[in-house]
C-alpha cells in the first residue's frame, strides 16, 4: 500500500470513529489538520492571533458537521470549504477594523520547511519573506486563487466547485493572479541567485 493510500485509509478510519464520538479519533484529526487549517485562516486574515481564534472556530464547525462529509476523498475540499466560509464570515465581521498587512518574523519562522540545513533555512526565509510580501500585496481575488492553487495545491476542478465558477474562469483567474504575483515578486527584488 502506498503512503497516500495508507493515509486515506487512516483518514477513513479516523473519520468513521469521529462520527461515533470517539474523542481520541477526534484529537488525532485535530492534530493531523490543525497546521493546515491554521495556515488557511492565517493566509485569509493575515493576523496570527485572529487566525488562531478562527482556526478554533473552524474546528468547532467541523465537529458539528462531521456527519455531512461523505467520505475521506472529499474531506480536504470539505475542510477547505468550511474554513473559507468561516474566514469570509470573520472578515465580514471584522469589516472596519484594520487588517494586518505583514506577518511577523515568528509567524514566518513557523512556516519553515523542515529538514533544511541552516544555510538553506536562511535562503528559504529570505525567499519566503519576499514571496509572502508579494502574496499579501495581491488583490483579494488573486490572493485567494493563489492560496487555493499554489499553497493548498487544490485541483482546478475543486477550486471551480469551491468558488462556484466555471472551470474556464478559474483558469483565467489563476493565470491573471500568477502574472500579478510574478510582477510583484520581481518588483520586490527576487533575483534568481538569491534562492541559492
Amino acid at each position, binding site marked *: 500500500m502506498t503512503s497516500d493510500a495508507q493515509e486515506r485509509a487512516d483518514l477513513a478510519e479516523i473519520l468513521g470513529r469521529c462520527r461515533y464520538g470517539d474523542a481520541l479519533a477526534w*484529537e488525532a484529526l485535530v492534530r493531523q489538520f*490543525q*497546521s493546515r487549517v491554521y495556515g488557511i485562516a492565517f493566509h485569509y486574515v493575515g493576523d496570527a492571533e485572529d487566525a488562531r481564534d478562527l482556526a478554533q472556530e473552524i474546528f468547532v464547525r467541523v465537529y458539528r458537521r462531521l456527519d455531512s462529509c461523505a467520505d475521506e476523498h472529499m474531506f480536504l475540499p470539505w475542510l477547505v470549504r468550511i474554513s473559507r466560509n468561516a474566514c469570509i464570515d470573520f472578515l465580514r465581521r471584522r469589516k472596519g477594523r484594520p487588517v494586518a498587512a505583514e506577518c511577523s518574523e515568528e509567524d514566518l519562522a513557523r512556516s519553515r520547511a523542515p529538514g533544511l540545513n541552516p544555510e538553506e533555512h536562511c535562503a528559504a526565509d529570505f525567499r519566503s519573506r519576499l514571496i509572502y510580501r508579494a502574496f499579501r500585496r495581491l488583490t483579494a481575488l488573486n490572493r485567494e486563487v493563489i492560496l487555493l492553487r499554489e*499553497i493548498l495545491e487544490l485541483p482546478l476542478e475543486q477550486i471551480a466547485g469551491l468558488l462556484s465558477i466555471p472551470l474556464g474562469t478559474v483558469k483565467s483567474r489563476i*493565470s491573471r493572479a*500568477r502574472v500579478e504575483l510574478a510582477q510583484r515578486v520581481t518588483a520586490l527584488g527576487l533575483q534568481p541567485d538569491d534562492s541559492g
Partner: protein
Amino acid sequence: MKEECSQFESQLSDLLAGILPLPASIRAQEHMSSCRKCRRLYKTAVGELDLLAPGAGQSLAVEILKKTSGPACQRAQDGISEFIDGALTPGDSRILFMHLQACPSCAEILRTLTETRSAFRPMARIQPGTGFTEEVLAATTRRSVPADPGKTGSRRWRTDLLHRPRLAWELAYLFTLILLVTVGNPALMSMDALRGKVRFAWTVTAVELERVSAAGLAGVEGTAEHVGERMGRRLAEAEQSLGSLWDRSRKITAAVLATDITPAGMFLPRIRTILLNIGRGIGLDRTFSRAMRYLEWMR
C-alpha cells in the same frame, strides 16, 4: 557578364535540385566564384545568408503583429499558466517557447513563477503554537471516551452511541418531538396540566430510549426502524386523546417515518432538521424553543 548572370539565374533551380548537367554545373560554379551578386543569390537560396540585418527579424515580427493580431503576450501568459499546471501539449509548448525566446517580459514571468512554486509549499502548513489542540478539544469534546479493549462488538457500539458528545442534544430533540406530538403546545396549557403531560411524555421517552439501547444489538438500521415504528404506534395512540393536535402530529410523524434512514449518525440530526423545517412551516418554531426550555426545567 549580364548574359552569364541571366543564364545562372535561369539554371539556379536545376542547380539546387542537383539535376543540372555536369558541364553547365561547372560553368555555374565558376561564374559564382567571379560574380558577387550571383554568389549572394545562391547563398540566400540555400539559406546560408539572412537578408535581414541582425535584430531586424524581431522588430519586423513586432511590426507585423502590430498590424495584424496585436501582441501575443496575453495568450502567452495563459499558456505559461497552463504550462505550470502541466496542461500544455508538446506542440503548444514549442509555440510558447518560441514566444518566450523573443519576449523577455514573458520569459521573466515564467522564470519567477517557476522559482516561487517551491516556496509556496511550506506555507500550506503553519503550526498554530502550543496549547492549540487542547483549546480545540476543550471547545468541542464534552466527554472523553477512553479506549476500552475489553468492550467489543455490540457492547462497544452501544457504549460509543451513549458516549456520543452530541447525544445529550439528540435526546433532547427526541424528547421534544414526543413532547410536541403528545402534549401539544406547552405555551397554551396550564402549568399543572403541563406537568402531568410532561411526566407522561418523559416516561414515553424513557421507555423508547430503553428500547433503542436494547435494539442496538440488532444493528443500526434495525434500531432506526424500531424507533420509527414505536414512535408511530405511540403517536397513533395519541390521536384519540389529543384530538385537534392530530393533524399537526400526523404531519410530523409522516415526515419522520418517510425518512430514508441508514447510518445511525444521520437519524437524529435528520429528525432535528425535519422538526425545524416543519416547525417553521406550521408556525411551531417558537413552541419548539419553549419546549426545549421546559425540558431543561423538568431536568
